[in-house]
């Protein structure tokens, strides 16, 4: 009974943040709801594997990331970034003024909408880094890429996000006229 109460407390503390994580990482609300339940079932099964010397939330996000990524891979979502084209990412120095202009006064909702249009891996990488605050090692492990490529994956994802924001802005402007 005590363990059930503790379990309920743990769920109450973390369910919302895991649901939000799933909501950002997966394509639909229904998927996110189901995934949240499944993640907590997994957490309950694997709780004995948790290393208490590490932060609990990091471990929780790791389980969630693995589950969501498996889910997306099982659905044969296009692998948007293969190792080959990671090598070909151009090293350039963008115009800081243009970048500032692009991101200035963007609402969270606009960014989330743009994020929803990204390929699965890019979106997952951004969520793992900027929502879950996972380290580069953990991201590499979750996404199955070499650690050296994590930065490239993130930068590519940011470029795609900028394109999506631009498209969204253009569509909105066209709708307004």
């Amino acid at each position, binding site marked *: 009974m005590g363990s059930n109460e503790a379990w309920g407390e743990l769920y109450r503390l973390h*369910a919302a943040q895991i649901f939000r994580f799933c909501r950002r990482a997966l*394509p639909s609300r*229904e998927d996110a709801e189901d995934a949240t339940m499944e993640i907590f079932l997994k957490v309950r099964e694997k709780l004995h594997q948790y290393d208490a010397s590490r932060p609990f939330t990091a471990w929780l996000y790791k389980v969630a990331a693995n589950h969501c990524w498996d889910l997306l891979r099982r659905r044969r979502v296009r692998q948007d970034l293969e190792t080959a084209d990671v090598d070909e990412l151009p090293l*350039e120095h963008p115009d800081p003024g243009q970048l500032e202009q692009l991101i200035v006064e963007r609402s969270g*909702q606009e*960014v*989330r909408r743009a994020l929803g249009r*990204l390929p699965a891996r890019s979106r997952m990488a951004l969520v793992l880094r900027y929502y879950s605050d996972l380290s580069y090692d953990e991201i590499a492990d979750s996404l*199955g890429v070499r650690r050296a490529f994590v930065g490239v994956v993130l930068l590519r994802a940011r470029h795609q996000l900028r394109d999506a924001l631009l498209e969204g802005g253009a569509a909105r402007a066209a709708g307004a006229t």
Partner: protein
Amino acid sequence: MSHVDEMTCLLYLEGQLERPRALELSAHVEGCGECRALLHALERESRLLVGALVEEDEALPARIAAPPARGATPWAWIVSFGLAAAGAYTLWTGIIEPWQQQMSQAGFEGTNLLTLVLFRGALWKGWGDMLNLLQVVALATLGIVTFSLLRRSWRRWTTIAVVMGAVAGVLLLPPQAGAAEIRHKAEAYVLAKDEVIKNDLILLGTANGRIDGTVEGDLIFFGRSLEVNGHVTGDIIGFAQLCEINGTVDGNLRIVANTLLVRGPVSKNVTVFAEHASFKDKSQVGGGAMLFAGDATLGGRINRDLLGFIKSSTLESYVGGDVSMRSTRMTVSSNAEVAGKFTYRGPVRPDISPQAKLASPPEIHIDQRRPEYASPRFYWHFALQWGAGFIFGLVVFLLMPGFFHEVVRSSSRYGPALGFGALTLFAIPILAVIACITIVGLAVGIGALLLWIVALYSAQVFVSVWLGETLLGPSSGTGGTIGRMALGILIYKVARLLPYIGPFVVLGTIILGMGGIALALYNRTRSQTAMAAGPAAA
């Protein structure tokens, strides 16, 4: 130092640069406004991202407000296993064993049901010769599956080399001797009167086949029409719209056809699945006959037992063994003769001519229209049916909880679900039969048909959960969903017993449930496509 690239700036901001490189960059940025501006913009972008992602824009949905409870289900498992064991025992003693006995009486000794199912019985004789073709198809499929499984973990070219090497190795193994003569997809095939094929003959996708000559082996036919005027020394296995057997068959006759006409002698047993079947006066069956037909006229001679599931049947023949018939209507004409027992089961009494020669008084069972509510057996069967549905639902729920909820949600969208359901219910069997006609599509066709049958049965489970949730409100957790499912199935099973309304309840449930499954699958493929193509899904 020239301007720093964006990648290095990002790694610097994220604390991923090695210390000497970070110090170098830091020094450079102090004197370079351009790079400082880039760092500033990237940092701002990071803040924007973090802000957008952590923003609490949605509350936790009520459905998942309570933690999932896994420990609450052992009772369900115990009940399920108990019911499953009881169901299996009843199935075996009530259906399979009597069937085996009947089949044995009908001339199928030595061919028990299991071997029949496992392709070793007489019904499947002849498939062995197609093994070479099937092996290649199976091997190719296995290769593709292995490749796709290993693709993620190995480097692609290594995988291709290993899998293709293995496939080539197996293909290079010496083929089995005694392959059959196989003809593919001809408009017409005629084996002339004087021609002899000293082997099995397999005609696949041939529109019209005519055998006037001799086949010294089995004849296997998939096509539109088959006419056998000559002599087949082995079995005939045929899938055809029209099948006429005027010649002599020394083996068994196994036919799936719209119309079957038999005018010649068949030395062994006959198994028929047909809309119309007619055994003319000159026909002779050396063994027993088993028929599943819409209507059948049985003339000539059947030397051993006759077992029939025929909507409308007319018996004019001599039957050397027992007759066991289940029909809606049956006529036994004056020239019919039955040497063994005559057993009939149906809704109305058969019309038996007084001149018909029956060795013993006929045993006639008239079906009761109403279920026998007073009998404990009725309630036992009801409990078993409920248990079977419940166990099935439990297995689906525990194996695929996400998909399960999706189907239940989709079923509640009546309009699209009913439309999709009706379409799926009728279109899939038709497409599967079309696929079966071409041998390449045979596996696809049979696979689709099997999935369709599973979907047909599972429809009741999904609709029952929806019904349970409508009555008790949405569930939170595994135990709640299972409880709602149990209640929903109970209500459904009771509703289908209602006179007049029952059949509509069944049909409506099947259509709605199948629609839910189709919609859920459609949504899944759409969301995958959406994710792959990039349009907004949030």
